[in-house]
């Protein structure tokens, strides 16, 4: 049986197809088709089947990550959003546009807001009011509902309606009645009630989550239908699963109800892959480091679980690894916590007005690409790696892609001359600066979250990750690095490793001693419902697992921490104090604790994990060639270059060395050793005195 993972990125669509009996893996990189995403996905699927010479009927499942949501919000041609209308409480029609009333760039006199997904003229209000405890202060009467529906009917071409009333998380009656009537009045439109998609307090974030869901729903539903229909037409009987932003899979038909939950699906899959790899080799703390052509992303896995954050801004910007508040559309769904920086192989080096060397944030992308691709004279990180001898000076992609090393050198020489540096020192400078930025991303997800990077193993992937891994590990005090078998398509691998996931949450707003027993019943009810749902989506029964958590805070605070639930108040309190101390460095004994939300996470596997792959070949580690490599300002002569495919299980190398392969290249620095173990490259830093 064949398991197929398809990861659609901005430039490339990566495919991994694994035979569940033999463990044999096929990996492919194909161009993406952003204007018509479904055709690219189906074409990728066809290519995988053709290359494996497999029948569609032998496909066990297809797991997919998509950028369709992000691209639509960013204004991709061919993915136009529908006209979205909104119904909200009288007096509050602009809450969705005011947001948190901050500007996203403090010193930019030309700063703007993201374009509202609902135009002001399409925001309608109803007279009603619910109080913070769910009490009805002003009743929503039927005449008011009828009037609102009539107003909506008068607007041509509405594709979706978001219903967003104040305090609806505490009492959803008004929203439900409105939703029912609007669905009847506008039969063609998707209707989303905020209390259904995000029942939590803080109105702007809830309204925004509802609006993003409404805006994406028609488009994502159509996309999913087309991909499913295409697979069926090819004879695939198995289901299509889509990865959500939280790294869990869901049956494709289900995501159409909450399309905002898949917006960050691509970046999540890399971290999930790193987590699965850790599970396979028995390492619980991993730093996932994914460096591609334009960006680098860092995430963490602690005790086998990917770090999760609870809110992100869809289509927002990041600055130096941190999300810029107010630059996108807030979506209050869990997502894999990542720090992203504009640092990749294509990132451009330049000189600022003071003549200082700068790297990024602009990228040469795939077109025109780095100077060494032959179509530009842009000095990029990739060119620097060519000049330093770390990348093959003749070709990439196993010979399929020619490299013009002279052109790389000329581009970097232009900068070097202005800086009065040797070409190689300028190249080393570019690499040092891009490394500094990437180490910032790695620090953000560790040190700033109260984690010590020295306790972690780095998993380096993406086309460029393994080139920079040793330097970053050195910078952070990490002593072990893992490079997976196919670093360039590792994220697609993550799709096959992920579990089906259901998350349920609801506001509690009660202090610890009162909340205990009532919550136990709630969790019980949620578990039986989730069990049914996961089994219905195809989960294997004995792989089901449940995690009960509460978001709690000191009663006088306004921010929460998630801790494992326990029915006994004293245990729950102790857990919270401890979590607060670990995260913020202190706790306040005796202070009352309030439970804000209860959360259940239920997971189940689609299939059992494949048997381990048999290590291949008995070939020893023999260098295929050698070349000079620059390191720390010195020329290291005739550094051995190895072919990844020829490295046998157990082979051991010591740095400096270069390991080349189709989809990536690993640079082993002088103070590092490497061993092939379990089909991974395990890089280890030599002890200090060596």
């Amino acid at each position, binding site marked *: 049986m064949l398991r197929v993972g398809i990861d659609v990125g901005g430039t490339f669509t990566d495919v991994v197809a694994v035979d569940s009996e033999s463990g044999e893996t096929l990996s492919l990189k194909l161009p993406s088709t952003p204007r018509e995403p479904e055709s690219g996905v189906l074409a990728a699927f066809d290519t995988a089947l053709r290359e494996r010479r497999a029948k569609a009927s032998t496909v066990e499942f297809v797991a997919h990550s998509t950028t369709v949501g992000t691209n639509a919000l960013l204004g991709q041609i061919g993915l136009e959003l529908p006209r979205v209308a909104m119904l909200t409480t009288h*007096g509050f029609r602009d809450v969705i546009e005011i947001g948190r009333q901050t500007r996203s760039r403090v010193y930019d006199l030309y700063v*703007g807001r993201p374009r509202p997904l609902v135009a002001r003229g399409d925001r309608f209000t109803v007279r009603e009011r619910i109080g913070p405890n769910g009490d009805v202060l002003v009743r929503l009467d039927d005449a008011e509902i009828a009037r609102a529906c009539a107003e909506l009917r008068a607007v041509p071409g509405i594709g979706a309606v978001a219903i967003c009333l104040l305090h609806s998380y505490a009492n959803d009656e008004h929203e439900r009645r409105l939703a029912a009537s609007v669905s009847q009045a506008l039969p063609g439109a998707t209707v989303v009630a905020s209390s259904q998609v995000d029942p939590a*307090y803080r109105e702007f974030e809830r309204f925004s989550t509802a609006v993003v869901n409404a805006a994406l729903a028609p488009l994502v539903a159509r996309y999913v239908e087309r991909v499913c229909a295409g697979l069926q037409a090819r004879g695939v009987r198995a289901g299509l699963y889509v990865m959500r932003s939280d790294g869990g899979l869901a049956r494709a038909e289900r995501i159409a109800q909450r399309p905002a939950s898949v917006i960050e699906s691509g970046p999540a899959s890399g971290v999930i892959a790193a987590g699965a790899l850790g599970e396979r080799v028995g390492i619980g703390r991993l730093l996932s480091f994914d460096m591609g052509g334009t960006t680098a992303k860092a995430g963490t896995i602690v005790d086998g679980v990917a770090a999760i954050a609870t809110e992100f801004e869809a289509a927002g910007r990041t600055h130096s690894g941190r999300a810029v508040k107010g630059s996108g559309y807030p979506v209050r769904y869990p997502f894999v916590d990542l720090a992203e920086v504009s640092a990749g192989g294509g990132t451009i080096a330049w000189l600022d007005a003071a003549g200082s060397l700068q790297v990024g944030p602009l990228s040469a992308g795939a077109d025109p690409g780095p100077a060494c691709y032959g179509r530009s004279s842009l000095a990029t990180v990739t060119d620097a790696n060519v000049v330093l001898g770390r990348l093959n000076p003749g070709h990439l992609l196993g010979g399929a892609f020619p490299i013009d090393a002279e052109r790389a050198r000329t581009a970097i020489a232009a900068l070097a001359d202005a800086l009065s540096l040797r070409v190689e020192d300028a190249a080393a400078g570019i690499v040092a600066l891009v490394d500094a930025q990437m180490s910032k991303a790695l620090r953000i997800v560790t040190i700033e979250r109260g984690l010590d990077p020295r306790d972690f193993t780095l998993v380096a992937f993406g086309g460029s990750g393994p080139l920079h891994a040793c330097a970053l590990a050195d910078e952070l005090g990490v002593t072990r690095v893992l490079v997976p078998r196919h670093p360039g398509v590792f994220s697609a691998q993550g799709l096959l490793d992920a579990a089906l996931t259901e998350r349920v949450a609801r506001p509690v707003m009660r202090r610890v001693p009162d909340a205990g027993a009532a919550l136990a019943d709630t969790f019980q009810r949620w578990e039986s419902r989730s069990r049914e749902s996961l089994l219905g989506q195809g989960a294997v029964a004995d792989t089901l697992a449940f995690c009960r958590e509460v978001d709690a805070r000191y009663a006088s605070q306004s921010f929460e921490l998630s801790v494992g639930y326990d029915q006994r108040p004293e245990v729950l309190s102790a857990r919270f104090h401890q979590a607060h101390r670990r995260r913020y460095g*202190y706790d306040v004994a005796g202070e009352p604790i309030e439970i804000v939300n209860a959360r259940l996470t239920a997971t189940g596997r689609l299939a059992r994990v494949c048997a381990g792959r048999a290590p291949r070949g008995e070939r020893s580690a023999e260098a295929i060639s050698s070349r000079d490599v620059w390191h720390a300002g010195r020329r290291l002569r005739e550094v051995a270059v190895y072919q990844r495919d020829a490295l046998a299980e157990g082979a051991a190398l010591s740095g400096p060395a270069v390991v080349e392969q189709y989809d990536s290249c690993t640079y082993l620095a002088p103070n590092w050793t490497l061993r092939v173990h379990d089909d991974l490259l395990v890089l280890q830093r030599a002890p200090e005195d060596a």
Partner: protein
Amino acid sequence: MNEIDPVTVEVIANALVYASEEMGVAVGNSAYSANIKERLDHSCALFDARGRLIAQAEHIPVHLGSLPWGLVETLRAIRANGGVRQGDMWVANDPYLTGTHLNDVTVIRPVFFQERLAGYAANKAHHADVGGSVPGSMPSVAADLFAEGLVVPPLRLMVDDLPVGETFALFAANSRTPDARHGDLRAQIAGNLTGERRLLELCDRYGAQTLARAVDRLLDASEMRLRHALRELHDGAFAAEDFLEDRNGTPSLRIALRLTLRDGQATIDYAGTSAQTALPLNAVFGVTLSGVHYALRAVTDPTIPMNDGCFRPVEVRVPEGSLLNPVRPAPVSGGNVETSTRNADVVLQALARAAPGRVPASSGGTMSNVMLGGTRRDGRTWAFYETIGCGMGARPNADGVDGIQCHMTNTANTPIEAIEREFPLRVVRYEFAAGTGGAGRFRGGDGLVRAIEIVESAAHATLLADRHAVGPPGACGGESGARGRHVLLREGRETVLPAKTGLDLEPGDVLVVQTPGGGGYGSPDGRTG
């Protein structure tokens, strides 16, 4: 090795900026009060051993020039009392030393490397209440500084790396929210210790000498970039003036300046500015500086790394005893919000003449401060403070943004659902004040309307706003934005309230705050859309 290579300088520059950002995260993470934790009303910076700013995380513009100025002044005071020692942590909030107002508490850590002073880590955070006559410590009337709250000269918060309990106790004993004072001061310590750790790592890795040379180079680079950007403006002298409204609503408090630009050097002379006032609207010199640096940075190049080099091409002269450089003990709480905002407007006005076509029309020009407090039926006291966004001035190429924080502040609103859970208040309206943006080829942003009803029991309100007499001016033929307005709705009657006032409210009363619209840009005849 006398020369230091440019790449090392750049790597160190990155590391220093990152260190200051990490300090900011550490303060935010460990703070107790929502004001610091959620609204991020704090700033962090690193200084070298000579007290020169080497990196600053950019959160709140009003801290931009005032934190470095405050560090120098505070250290001068500390030196007069014996100076800093290893293991010290100092705290102060005296505005005449630290550079803003009493709520902004500054904490300073001298950093020692191999027994020698290597620099300072410092941060400033807004404490929600530091005593005084009203909750929030920003009264609408105050005869002097002492009426505004507790004045703390430089005191030790740590000695030999151990907390000084008495100093914590002093802050707690003088605040309406004592528990939060402890948590917030601890957070400020955590921030400085983070900065210290990073600075020491750099000393370790590169050596103190190389680090010092790199710092020299990167300060020079910022100076060079700012001079370069200033040379792109027109040389010459450019005068500008505007007025703040006094308690009677008369725009009588004058801010006047003359900006002289010559070959990459900017001189700003505030001769002609009103004398200091008996109202809490005086802006200490640090606040005045921050307005200048904010405006210059926004108009020239906001990507220049913020450090001492950015201050060198700029000279600021303010008459002593004036609204923008008062003499102790003039009251200053509102100078930090309202006067600070108008000052930035006036500097931008002058810059508009030096950089035609690059500076937007005036934004709302007030932070629209609302402070409410009282005693609940169960006897608990409560205090609520917020600032409300306004209309942004239209830009030379685009409309102004509706209802947003402008210029010297960027703090977030408190969610309505949070306000109603925590306070005996009900928000009855929060939307754009449609049509309040000034007309123009590009339209000014609309202001906001926020209406709050008092429920449960009586409350006291303090309102502090401006631009109620004259709307924010347009630019290049654009019209002014609409003026702001305060209205009290009581038993079906509307009463217009002054811009700056304090009053008692009963349950059922509704306070309506309408903030000013932004000015328009260019003649409305030129409007295309």
